[in-house]
């Protein structure tokens, strides 16, 4: 009976590891897969295999996957709501903006790793910080995207959008000022 529960979790986590578009989630799913399969080995009466799986599969292979993921560049996307009073707590989990799926498709095509940060900070405060690549603000059903001129991924995103001529998206490019 216990094995059946763990078989179900193993199959689900393996399918999720293959299906997910983000690489770092796949690393977490594979770590869960290894940790659970070590216990399944114990249930099946193979404690030596469980020992090897716990050491190799759950620890070393995770670090090797992370070292391989360093080839991917991280694309920092800040998404902020101007209207702070309507910023509800369930905002993060339940509603996903449709523009984010487009940006994630773009990042998958160019071998970038999107890292999306939801924040309620001011726009200028974020612009002061180093390391942002794209800032998405939302004003009355219109999206305003802020990018920098020297960031060629953001410029490629701008070109792609202007080719498709979307109405609801406008782009603001920050010039480099000394």
């Amino acid at each position: 009976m216990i094995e059946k529960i763990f078989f179900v979790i193993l199959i689900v986590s393996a399918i999720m590891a293959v299906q997910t578009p983000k690489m770092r989630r796949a690393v977490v799913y594979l770590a869960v897969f290894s940790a659970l399969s070590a216990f399944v080995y114990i249930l099946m009466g193979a404690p030596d295999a469980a020992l090897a799986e716990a050491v190799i599969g759950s620890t070393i292979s995770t670090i090797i996957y992370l070292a391989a993921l360093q080839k991917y560049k991280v694309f920092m996307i800040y998404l902020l709501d101007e209207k702070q009073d309507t910023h509800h707590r369930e905002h993060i989990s339940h509603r996903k903006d449709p523009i984010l799926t487009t940006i994630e498709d773009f990042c998958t095509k160019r071998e970038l790793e999107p890292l999306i940060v939801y924040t309620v900070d001011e726009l200028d405060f974020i612009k002061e910080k180093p390391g942002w690549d794209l800032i998405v603000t939302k004003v009355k059903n219109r999206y305003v995207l802020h990018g920098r001129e020297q960031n060629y991924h953001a410029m490629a995103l701008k070109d792609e959008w202007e080719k498709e001529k979307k109405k609801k998206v406008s782009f603001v490019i920050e010039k480099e000022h000394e």
Partner: protein
Amino acid sequence: MIEIATYIISFLVMITAIKIIMGPTIWDRLLAYNLVMAKILMLIVLFSVIIEKSYLLDIAITYSLIGFISTLFIAKFVKDRGKI
């Protein structure tokens, strides 16, 4: 009683695995992964109580000593934005 406890804990492992799948951010997944690791540690100890063999506890010691390294490295990887 021990058998009932193993059933309940494996059911809780399943619920926590749902949290790993539906968690909105990567940190929620890491937190639920930490919970799953602790519960599997309990399950190994309870299972060694059931079959009354103490060599399974060696596996549990190895598991507790080494299982936290992957969580630390994933957290550091996310914090430093792509560097270990």
